[in-house]
């Protein structure tokens, strides 16, 4: 009796599944081949002929490996578009808004340059703070966008879109301040 487990294990080497899952798949496929082999033996074929017949069950082990991988892998909770673009984009927007609120609350006081008068526009200190906040939130979003692995070109295209969202967060306020100046 041929070692069907060994054969299947060898042919499916490098299958991208968890260790216990791969072991289960190997055991199951080996069982199938063994059953087929016994069935051919019962039909009166010679052992060598049986092995040849059984091996015909799989024309391409590489294709089978790829099909098993894709059929057993769990679908990610977020699809690529969501995980690489929308999620980082909204996170950037959220972070930039939080940063703006923090600047408003704890940032430098406008009266430093306004000479004690109520400010009519955003102070230079505040604008410096906003620009300083832009970089970390943008970097954070880029990193999140890059984490879910995709084709490099797609990831770079998405990464180039992300800074736009943090500008969207800071933009209106910055524009208002500029117009006032």
């Amino acid at each position, binding site marked *: 009796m041929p070692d069907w487990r060994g054969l299947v294990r060898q042919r499916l080497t490098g299958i991208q599944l968890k260790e216990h899952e791969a072991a*289960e*798949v190997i055991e199951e496929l080996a069982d*199938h081949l063994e059953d087929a082999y016994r069935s051919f033996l019962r039909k009166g074929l010679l052992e060598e002929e049986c092995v040849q017949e059984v091996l015909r*069950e799989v*024309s391409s082990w590489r294709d089978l490996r790829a*099909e*098993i991988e894709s*059929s*057993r892998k769990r679908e990610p909770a977020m699809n690529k578009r969501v995980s690489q673009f929308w999620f980082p984009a909204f996170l950037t927007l959220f972070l930039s808004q939080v940063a703006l609120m923090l600047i408003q609350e704890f940032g430098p006081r406008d009266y430093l340059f306004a000479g004690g008068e109520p400010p009519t526009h955003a102070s230079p200190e505040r604008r410096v703070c906003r620009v300083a906040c832009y970089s970390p939130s943008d970097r954070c979003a880029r990193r999140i966008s890059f984490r879910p692995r995709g084709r490099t070109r797609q990831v770079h295209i998405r990464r180039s879109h992300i800074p736009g969202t943090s500008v969207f967060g800071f933009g209106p306020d910055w524009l208002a301040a500029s117009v006032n100046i």
Partner: protein
Amino acid sequence: MIASGIKRGTAELAVLSVLESGPLHGYEIARHIEQQTRGSLRFTLAALYPMLYRLEKLKLVQGSWESSPNGRRRRCYRLTATGKKKLVPLRKEWSQLFVALRQLAGGSNA
């Protein structure tokens, strides 16, 4: 023997149908399909298992390891409630297709 392209489309129906009678392991599923279709449909290992795993992921079938009386551990598949529900419209769709194809074939012969 039916061509592999057509067979692939009918595979889901074939597997769910044979599992309706009770739980079976992979090799038995393949043999049941072959016997019930008198050899017209034959699923190789390469065609059967990726599909079984896909059906399992869709929760139409459920696989579990069971020990046979001779002590051999086998992975048996059974139809889930979702699978049973899915089988009804699936059968209807396919029978409509067969009727349509028969009409088409009859029309061209006439």
